[in-house]
């Protein structure tokens, strides 16, 4: 089997990592083409991206802070992919989780740090999980398509969040269209002295440690536990799982609850680490949708998602600085869009390979998972 000549198609279809890297390169090439068409120096633009990111500890710490919520929401979506449900409702769960943490922090501002922070986390996870479980309930009870109800629940979350932000007890005392700032006891930022001493950005926070722990936990659940086995079985083949005695409905509930929990926690981390208050939205924030992108770039592998989240966060942060050199920040969107496009194409490569190999009795093993 090994002496088979490897075709280009095999190469793309089998090696997800290479394919992802290549997609990223193509993303930048396409971005460069657009820049050239607009007569903007590619060197200037990409130079700015690089210099922003690799601007010593300050630049890097910004990237990490930006990336944290993307990683966590990316894990949420990746987890749902692995278990056969497409959690397009991560956005709503994120918004609700964030608001739950915010309300908790505003209403109980004087609790000591070691109590309030976990409490906010729990509140966000609980509300995120509920937001996911309602959809699971609708699906398993009445067979309502989860994608549709999730999209609607994203909007319910959006308006509910705005509604809560306008409640007098929550709303900012000043003129800002936002909630109050959360109390210092709920913030997870590093101490000002430490930040100054190490020349970090002022939003540096502990969230990244939470993200690392979550990455490992999600990987562990998916690969090592009976729960992960069960959820994956249902995700891959609901019928066989049921035949084997696994309850598919229960699995969908669990999967969406865990996924919602992660998205909700992502919202709390962003709030407690960077935002410190929630604005009245004029449009959806997009963290949940970014989570889909991150999960795709990370090939739904928890560690891949971690790397993808860092990449995405860095681009978002450095992209925001592009207008300083007269480059439209939308270039970043073009790059990311192209990357996702080419990663999605990998499915096509696998499919072409599948079609070509179909008559063969024994197909080649796909790239291993573990």
């Amino acid at each position: 089997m090994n002496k088979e000549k490897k075709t280009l198609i095999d190469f793309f279809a089998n090696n997800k990592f290479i394919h992802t890297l290549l997609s990223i390169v193509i993303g930048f090439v396409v971005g460069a083409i657009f820049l050239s068409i607009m007569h903007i120096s590619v060197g200037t633009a990409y130079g700015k991206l690089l210099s922003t990111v690799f601007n010593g500890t300050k630049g890097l710490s910004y990237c990490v802070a930006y990336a944290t919520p993307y990683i966590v929401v990316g894990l949420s979506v990746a987890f749902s992919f692995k278990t056969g449900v497409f959690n397009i409702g991560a956005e709503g769960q994120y918004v609700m989780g964030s608001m739950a943490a915010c309300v908790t922090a505003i209403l109980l501002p004087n609790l000591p740090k070691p109590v309030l922070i976990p409490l906010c986390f729990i509140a966000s996870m609980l509300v995120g999980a509920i937001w996911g479980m309602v959809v699971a309930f609708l699906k398993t009870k009445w067979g309502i398509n989860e994608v549709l109800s999730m999209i609607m629940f994203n909007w319910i979350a959006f308006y509910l969040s705005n509604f809560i932000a306008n409640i007098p007890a929550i709303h900012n005392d000043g003129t800002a269209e936002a909630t109050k700032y959360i109390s210092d006891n709920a913030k997870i930022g590093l101490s000002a002295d430490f930040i100054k001493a190490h020349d970090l950005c002022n939003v540096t926070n502990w969230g990244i440690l939470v993200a690392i722990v979550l990455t490992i936990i999600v990987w562990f659940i998916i690969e090592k536990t009976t729960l992960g086995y069960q959820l994956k079985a249902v995700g891959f083949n609901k019928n066989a799982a049921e035949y084997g005695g696994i309850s598919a409905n229960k699995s969908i509930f669990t999967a969406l609850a865990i996924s919602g929990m992660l998205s909700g926690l992502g919202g709390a981390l962003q709030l407690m680490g960077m935002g410190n208050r929630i604005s009245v939205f004029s449009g959806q924030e997009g963290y949940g949708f970014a989570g889909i992108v991150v999960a795709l770039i990370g090939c739904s592998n928890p560690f891949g998602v971690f790397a993808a989240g860092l990449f995405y966060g860095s681009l978002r942060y450095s992209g925001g600085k592009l207008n300083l050199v007269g480059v439209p920040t939308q270039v970043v969107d073009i790059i990311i869009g192209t990357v996702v496009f080419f990663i999605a194409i990998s499915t096509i490569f696998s499919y072409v390979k599948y079609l070509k190999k179909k008559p063969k009795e024994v197909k080649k093993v796909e790239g291993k998972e573990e």
Partner: protein
Amino acid sequence: MARENVDLNTVVIEMRNIVKRFGNFTANDGIMLKVHKGEIHAILGENGAGKSTLMNQLYGLLKPTSGDIIVNGKKVDMNNPKDAINAGIGMVHQHFMLVQPFSVTENIVLGMEPVKGMTVDMKTARQNVVDISEKYGLAIDPDAKIEDISVGMQQRVEILKALYRGADVLILDEPTSSLTPAEITELIQIMHNLTKDGKSIILITHKLKEIKESADFCTIIRRGKYIQTVDVDECSEDDLASMMVGRKVTFKVDKPKQKAGEVILDVKDLHGVDYRGVEILKGLDLQVRAGEIVGVAGIDGNGQTEMVEIITGLRKATKGEVIVNGVNVMNKSPRFGFENGVSSIPADRQKHGLVLDFSVEDNLILQNFKEGEFSKNGILNRKAIKDFATKSIEKYDIRPENCEERPAGTLSGGNQQKVIIAREVQNDKDLLIAVNPTRGLDVGAIEYVHKYIVEQRNKGKAVLLVSFELDEIMSLSDDIAVIFDGKIVDRLPGNEADENTLGLMMAGGKKDE
């Protein structure tokens, strides 16, 4: 046999040195085929041997990588089925391509309708269809809707469709796979009638008995390679089987006499509805005792599928009892049945039997991942799982070797079935239900599957075998229960059954008629 119709001087189809490659994979490697006028020519090979690939090239669905196709002495390029139809070749696919709500006439003339002005001239069309059906002795009702007629009739419509398009050579792809014994006999008669009229038939199959009964010559393909073309009269079924598989094959299943023990499965007065909500089980009673194989014979659609689904917990019954080991498992969950002694080899191995994206080792623990050594406190014990898989792969000869971590979907059908059998047999439950356990498998794999099923019986397990293959039922069962219209209409010892009485009973007739 029917050699009298063969005109050995007129070669209608010749395929020379056909090579077909898909990437690095060679599906056909130098295949030769010569079909004479008035001949029934069987193409025999295991699953994946390249039979269908070869025929798809003849019918213009695939282009050969190299090699020539010669029709009536002229080399032709088949670019699409239209070229093939123009060259007088017709194909009846295994899965019929008919428009269900259309009438027989409409289906036959579809795409070649006689027209009068702007409208279809249905009167002429109907007359044409009647003419052609009389000419070849293929009786049909030209006005019946396809959805209302039987599978055998639908096949006739397919054959007429090809004849209507002027086919002189008919390719029949696994034509008997869904027919009853009586329908098979009729089909063979029809084939002989057609050859009498100078038509030629290419029959793709892996059923040896039908080849013996109908074909004049047989071309054997093994793993894409041409083995040889033989005169069917000069070969026995065993010869054909060994040529196809490449080794000696035994059909006889070694089944020592043994006395059946206590009742393990007791189905009482079972009522149930099918997916449309129509009552399909109408008071079914069935008992299976320890150490016996009870075969359920019946035509598809008489309730056997629903019966199995109810016993395995996938479907709810409206009335009755399903007692396994003294516990009523009816209208509970698959898990409940499993825990009370039900294991099963499901009819659809890819839908119900396996998680194709899971590795072989993960598939082997599908019901047991929470139990015993495979996990502790919710954490999987990968080493124990792998060890179990390695042992199973060796014991049940699952190929390729060392396929523990391979996705089950990459195994061949026969090996996928072995994975299921390894799992279900090692579950060591008192009741094993096997539904069409050898469907789509070739002779070699069938031999293994039968061996394991009988082994379970010999170990004193109760085995319920549901199959549309009468041969399988007859060679394995200690007792045969005939299902008709939602009830078991009769039960007779396996050694007293013969195909004709069974066929009659399956169609609703009585044993003594």
